[in-house]
């Protein structure tokens, strides 16, 4: 994971949505790199902006309803400066996207084969025979037992797990450098989830692709990711290797999330609950630490005025200095809640 292998560089990206005539930031000042041969997980709860980040990279926002600032440098091209035609040279070819709900993400009236080969119509000059072969090859690669049969079927004839495999096949059809997977296993059973994550990992190894894995499931992150970025209220609050995040989490939000997981607790105790709620888009605070209202026992001077990112050790970055003094209410020296 040398820093020279990075091919996607997100620099100071903010995306704002128009609500009743005014623009509100869904993500603000995001900086991230993605390298070849890595799975970067973006975790956070609903409303934290992780999906907005994905759709911003893909350029899927309606330009009349959104305002995007910053730079998305993909192998030397700033994607945000491209027009629709220019973007289409990247989408599907160099960037593949995997969506959450595998039933609605497939056209109900087209056969699986047509939906997979469609992406090759625009990015390859394969003959129809080559495309057909490639479709079968892809279906096999994502673990579908009878590719010939599945190619002829319609989406509603497949199970949820198979549909998600088809979505993955579409995303990897043109061997993209970057794969963005937005909650790829949320709708699936655990056993299927494990299989789908295996497929993703194998593809990444074979194609040397970089994967951005967007999820709210810390278990999925711990199992699959190489690096992790934790998002809260439109900002990245902590970034590091998966070991750094899970073994030595620093930011109060990361620590709180890990603590509210049922897997890690003592069985009969209450789970840890983060006080308050995630602020809505219109009520997002714009100065100070956005997480401060949810750890009210921490004195105000523990937070920076303009929380900046601090690098603690190689690759481990934390927003704000409040992590230094942060303790849970029940910990030694922590204030009572």
């Amino acid at each position, binding site marked *: 994971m040398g820093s020279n292998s990075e091919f996607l560089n997100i620099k100071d990206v903010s995306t704002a949505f128009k609500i009743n005539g005014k623009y509100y930031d869904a993500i603000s000042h995001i900086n991230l790199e993605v390298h070849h041969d890595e799975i970067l997980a973006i975790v956070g709860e*609903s409303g934290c902006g992780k999906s907005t980040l994905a759709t911003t990279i893909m350029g899927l926002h309606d330009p009349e309803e959104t305002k995007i600032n910053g730079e998305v440098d993909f192998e030397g091209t700033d994607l945000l400066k491209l027009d629709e035609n220019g973007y289409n040279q990247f989408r599907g070819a160099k960037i593949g996207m995997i969506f959450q709900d595998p039933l609605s993400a497939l056209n109900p009236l087209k056969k699986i084969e047509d939906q997979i080969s469609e992406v090759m119509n625009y990015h390859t000059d394969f003959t129809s025979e080559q495309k057909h072969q490639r479709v079968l090859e892809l279906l096999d690669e994502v673990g579908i037992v009878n590719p010939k049969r599945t190619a002829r079927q319609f989406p509603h004839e497949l199970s949820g797990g198979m549909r998600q495999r088809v979505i993955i096949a579409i995303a990897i059809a043109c061997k993209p450098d970057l794969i963005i997977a937005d909650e790829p296993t949320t709708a699936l059973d655990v056993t299927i989830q494990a299989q789908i994550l295996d497929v993703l990992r194998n593809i990444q190894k074979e194609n040397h692709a970089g994967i951005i894995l967007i999820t709210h499931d810390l278990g999925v992150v711990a199992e699959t990711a190489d690096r992790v970025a934790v998002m809260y209220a439109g900002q990245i609050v902590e970034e590091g290797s998966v070991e750094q995040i899970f073994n030595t989490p620093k930011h109060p939000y990361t620590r*709180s999330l890990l603590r509210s997981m049922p897997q890690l607790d003592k069985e009969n105790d209450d789970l840890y609950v983060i006080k308050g709620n995630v602020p809505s888009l219109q009520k997002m605070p714009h100065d100070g630490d956005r997480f401060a209202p949810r750890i009210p026992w921490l004195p105000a001077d523990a937070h920076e005025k303009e929380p900046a990112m601090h690098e603690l050790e190689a690759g481990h970055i934390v927003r704000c200095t409040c992590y230094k003094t942060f303790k849970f209410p029940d910990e030694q020296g922590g204030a009572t809640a």
Partner: protein
Amino acid sequence: MSLIEIKDLKVHYPIRSGFWNRVTDSVKAVDGISFDIEAGETYGLVGESGSGKSTTGKSVVGLEKVTSGSIMYKGKDITKKSNRKSLDYNHDVQMIFQDSLSSLNPRKRIEDIIAEPLRNFEHLSKDEEKLRVLQLLDIVGLDADALYKYPHQFSGGQRQRIGVARAVATNPKLIIADEPVSALDLSVQAQVLNFMKKIQREFGISYLFISHDLGVVRHMCNNIAIMNNGRLVEIGTREDIYNHPMHIYTKRLLAAIPETNVSRRAEHRANRLKVEEVYREQQDKYYDKDGLAYPLVQITPTHSVALPEDLAEQLKHEGEVQA
């Protein structure tokens, strides 16, 4: 005596086909399951989508037409409508749904939503009713100003807590919770689970906790049943299921839970692939010729597994040797 005793419950849906649209076959959503729920406990029912766990839950509340078998409550079989009526069954047994937005009437205010079961079963004056609703809101940690709001004005976690408040309004003995937290974020999930536990401690409620999430089930439930294709494959205490799983299906489910200990993930993954392999190889041994689970065989007083006779004897023996 147990609070609820489910015996050989079957729910089959007919499949009609042919020219005359006659019943030619049936989908066996629930195919002969038996278990008991004790007063004050949380009983976990675990299974993947299509296993029949939700159908079981609906049968216990009386929302599903049962094909055969019985569900005994206070000595009466509540699969019969007349018995449900005479026992005031739905006063004692309530349900919490997965999707809190679609299960709360969008045109009613929270006050009316929570008061609805009260109005059906208890005849309170206006003031008494309001007081009860306020108490209930307090129990689930919502402010009094929630009374006059509508469901869409709340977040998912708050709505789920409103669902809990409505379910506990009549002081029920049993609440069927069908995937109550699977649509929620982690921190909100923690909140709802804590509330459910708190209410249980205070009012002695039993839960039938239906979920596909083994982590949450382990946190909540003392006794657990694993369901697969309409049948139970394993019943036991938390300890039995998580530390001594015997059916390959249970083993496979447990192996698929993501490992949160990052340093052990390679090992965990290898183990999962091994279990998958075993599952594929030994499927014939653990399921009958129709691919369904065998009847449950008791291994220890708390632990039963769906195994053919010979395999059960062998495992029992191994267990004794280990002990």
